């Protein structure tokens, strides 16, 4: 059996809608493909179940990237959550998903029964999804895989606003998204982006925070050049 690469789906990097046949398995023999969100196997075909851009991570990982208001948790996503309740073992955290997520009180760096952090209701937390399936509430952790705090934990001050999941993915993309690059040249601010469509911005001056947040919210439907022009326009008005 000669080892040849599986032919990539012709729809990669284009928009798919539910029902689109992404791959025909009958033509592929002895190959493994991995399916991510928005795809499902239907007999001998792989079909899209959500609308969005079909992505391929070489050699064989496929998923559909969509932009929506709600968030479907998946493992290893970094999210911004709001504490809605505290229980002896868990903090209940709202991550814009279908269910509240659990954040075990011990899942902090050096966390023991003795030093449980005190989070009041409404605390903003930057965390990582460690467990996500459709049967249980998702589970969060404030440690990276090595058990270090690594920027995770409570976010103090600043302002949090909601965008779509697609927007937050765009902000996290590399190379840096044009709107952030343009803003970063002129202003200094701190930003945390959760894949659940929440963005936190902090800066010494409230006016900077407001400008940055509005620039980001407005840039969703703009191209790179338009984003830069828009930011320059905003900065001019400020000065």
């Amino acid at each position, binding site marked *: 059996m000669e080892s040849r690469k599986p032919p990539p789906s012709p729809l990669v990097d284009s928009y798919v809608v539910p029902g689109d046949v992404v791959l025909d398995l009958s033509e592929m023999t002895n190959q493994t493909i991995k399916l991510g969100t928005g795809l499902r196997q239907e007999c001998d075909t792989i079909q899209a179940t959500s609308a969005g851009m079909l992505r391929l991570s070489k050699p064989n990982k496929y998923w559909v990237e969509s932009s929506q208001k709600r968030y479907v948790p998946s493992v290893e996503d970094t999210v911004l959550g709001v504490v*809605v309740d505290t229980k002896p073992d868990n903090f209940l955290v709202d991550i814009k998903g279908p269910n509240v997520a659990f954040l075990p009180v011990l899942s902090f760096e050096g966390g023991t029964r003795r030093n449980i952090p005190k989070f009041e209701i409404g605390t903003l937390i930057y965390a990582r999804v460690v467990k996500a399936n459709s049967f249980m509430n998702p589970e969060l952790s404030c440690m990276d895989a090595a058990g270090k705090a690594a920027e995770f934990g409570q976010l103090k*001050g*600043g302002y*949090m606003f909601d965008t779509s999941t697609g927007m937050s993915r765009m902000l996290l993309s590399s190379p840096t998204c044009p709107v952030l690059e343009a803003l970063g040249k002129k202003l200094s601010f701190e930003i945390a982006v959760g894949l659940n469509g929440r963005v*936190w911005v902090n800066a010494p001056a409230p*006016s900077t925070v407001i400008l940055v947040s509005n620039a980001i919210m407005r840039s969703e439907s703009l191209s790179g050049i338009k984003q830069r022009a828009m930011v320059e326009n905003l900065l001019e008005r400020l000065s």
Partner: protein
Amino acid sequence: MEHLRWRPSVNEREFIESALQSDLRVDGRHSFDFRKLKISFGREDGSSEVQLGETHVLGYVTAQLVQPYRDRPNEGTLAIFTEFSPMADPAFESGRPGESAIELGRVIDRGLRESRAVDMESLCVVAGKQVWSVRVDLHILDNGGNLIDAANIAALAALSTFRRPECTVGGDDGQQVIVHDPEVRDPLPLTIHHMPIAVTFAYFGEGNIVVVDPTYKEEAVVGGRMTATINSNGDICAIQKAGGEGVMSSVVMQCLRIASVKAADITSKIKKAVDSYTTEKALKKVKRLPASLPQKINVTDVTMEDKGDGELETQTVKTPSDVQEISKDPATTGKASSHEDAQPMLAESSNAEVKITSSSGAAGESEEAQEIGSPKSLKDAIKPKHKRKKNKK
């Protein structure tokens, strides 16, 4: 419980409050700025869609003939109904109207009805028997804060484009109501004396900070809220101050001054939108005429043929069902049907008479439209003759 009301995080709450202390709003507006207002209309008269920033409200007006209330026999009725869909906000429950839904309905109802913005007496058809009951449905499609103002604008926009069918009183006893088909007679608009505009103020930090048109997030942090319904003349139609922090009377007076400026501004926006909609609608009507001219020629052809052979005439006279169709007024036939059963010939003849008066009374244009618009042009052509026969009998 999953369906808790959305609460902002501590960070948001603190930031919104601290930014307001330094006269900044999180969406970059000034304290007394409204968000962008967009008014659009549906295909049918009496439907409007209002977008106030993220807030999205659909207004729909319908009317029907009902018996008036006993204490007001010569006035129509106006009722406001609200529909809060859970799609707009997870905090809204389907089915049972929540506290905010009732408050919204009441505030708009008070502004519109109790200030007598819509003329009720012109909705009377037969005193004590038949009046128009106007129903305004307000559907909240997206909750981005300040639902009251958006819903109020939607209600006004829908009411100002609404057209009710014209109706006249006739029949033997002079009590029978004939509702004219919109194709035959142009429907009538409602008489709107003035436009009561709701302007909502939000108070923060012990009532020292005042902003208009609060967003969803600002509403979640707000200390107190006041809605002033005011028209462009500066007449105060209603004030709603629901709970929250107390406000100094001087602040209330200041708010009312601001509200009257905003009301004039929004009134002109609504009027502009309504005007452009009505002119567009009128233009569409004009455009239809040239296309239908050839059809008119056809009609005359048919009459020519009819005169040639008498078969068609006799056919129509034979079948009573056709006679009903000829009177071409679905509402009338529906209303008079019980009457007809008892004394068919009389009712038919009276109906036919009414038909004659209505067609002669209407302008030439509408008669043309009537002939052209309906596929029954053949029967229409025969009508005069047929009537003559009836009268002879």
